């Protein structure tokens, strides 16, 4: 699987509250989280995420274990998240919800062209390659299926 898109640069320790604020969690409208994504960080960002790859600093997705954070990013059209380290629960939630997340440190400049080769484990940023541990075969299949629930259904 190859993922491409322009980079959106974010800082370190972006917690799940910054991804989707607590005030938006309790709703039956699951599509609403994407509209409020990163609202407390930069209210303009939500509209510019579609088709992009987020390149963040360390410890992305730390804090509350809310699954809505990964749903919001996925539904806002984010193609993948790249960060040198990703908080454990966010990482599991993201993969199981079908949002590709890889651990890799990159020097980010906005709108750089990012190309991720998920199978080989290489991110190319403005032509420069950066290797990372590729996800396992099963993780890639889960992503390809769009998440754990559909992956399980397809296998039946």
């Amino acid at each position, binding site marked *: 699987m190859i993922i491409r898109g322009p980079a959106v640069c974010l800082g370190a320790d972006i917690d799940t509250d910054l991804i989707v604020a607590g005030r938006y969690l309790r709703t039956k409208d699951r599509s609403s989280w994407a509209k409020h994504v990163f609202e407390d960080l930069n209210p303009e960002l939500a509209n510019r995420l579609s088709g992009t790859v987020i390149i963040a600093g360390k410890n992305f997705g730390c804090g509350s274990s809310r699954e809505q954070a990964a749903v919001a990013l996925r539904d806002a059209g984010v193609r993948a998240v790249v960060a040198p380290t990703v908080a454990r629960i966010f990482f599991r939630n993201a993969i*199981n919800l079908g949002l590709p997340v890889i651990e890799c440190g990159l020097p980010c400049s906005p709108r750089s062209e990012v190309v991720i080769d998920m199978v080989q484990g290489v991110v190319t940023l403005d032509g420069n390659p950066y290797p990372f541990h590729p996800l396992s075969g099963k993780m890639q299949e889960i992503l390809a299926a769009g998440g754990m*629930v559909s992956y399980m259904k397809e296998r039946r």
Partner: protein
Amino acid sequence: MGTLAERVLGGDAGSYVDCRVDHAYAHDGTGVLAHHSWKEMGSFLADPATISIIFDHIVPANNSTTAELHADLRRFAGDHGIRFSDCGGGICHQFMAEGLVVPGEVVVGADSHTCTLGALGAFATGVGATDLAAVWSSGETWLRVPETIKVRIDGRLSNASEAKDIALTYVSRLGMDGGSYMALEFVGEAMPDLSMDERLTLCNLAVETGSKAGLCYADRTTCEYLRGYGVHSEEQHPEPADYASETTIDLADVVPVVAIPPRVDTVRPVGECEGIALDQVFVGTCTNGRASDIARFARAVKGRKVAVRTVVVPASRRVYLEALAAGHITDIIAAGCMVAPPGCGPCLGVHSGVLGEGEVCLSTANRNFKNRMGIGGEIYLASVGTAAASAIRGEITSPEGA
């Protein structure tokens, strides 16, 4: 080559592996959610023999809603030939430690203290209910192989100190996120001296540092312990490996301690907290409810009277029977304590000793978060010996010289 976590999972730290899972268990709380997700995924079971459902959190049921949820899950287990332990069998982690989990296995449980089972040389970690349902469906899961912090345990423990004091000492040293994403590996010259009960206590608190797992190498003690359950196992030996960091605890420096609410890593010598008045003492849980804990408590209160309401909960039916046979339960009740049926007891604040506003409890459990055992209640965490000395005085008391 490699850390114990790397060897059991079959990959280098930082890599991702697809693992066959040997045990995937849930309790009556998370089991309900996992069952729901499992139905959403198409109701397929890869291998019922790897699944266990253990009722421990709210046992016996405290109201009709719980009773109905229990009934549903009980039926699910029965219909599919899933290993099932009903109310009174014991805490899930203890149940799994009694001859089910063996060294080298991969174990996932829908409960954060699944890390307890690393004491047996297995890689055991807590997962979410939906994650667990996927394992029930497929028989496997994906894991990131964690980096490992080597925790060396050297020297000898003084009489008044216990494995719980070692555990609180490492939690205070690493802090509540000092082990995030990592595994803790317990090695050192003191390890052969530690009993299985003590190792289970040590690994139980790994998650309080944010760690994914805590592990001990299986040695003679492990194999003998499992032989007691009629299970054959093999020893494991350390090999050269890369560790993220290393810390050493000299047991000569470990004194009886308490963790002050509301953080597990705010740890002080018991001496500094002496005299704090208590409303309740609680002895039990997956941290300190095992046979040696109940025996220690019984010996300390035998022939005396507790000065505060005291709830004792054996971690399993087996533990309960052993304590009964040894006469410990008689001594505990004669001292004025209550004994509740095996399970989590008041640990999660739903029944069997919930705290009221402003009440203070000294507990042998692993979490002292705000409101955990009841709204407005405060929890000090300590060892069994400290709990016994404190129960007798009705205030926090060091077991030294007691």
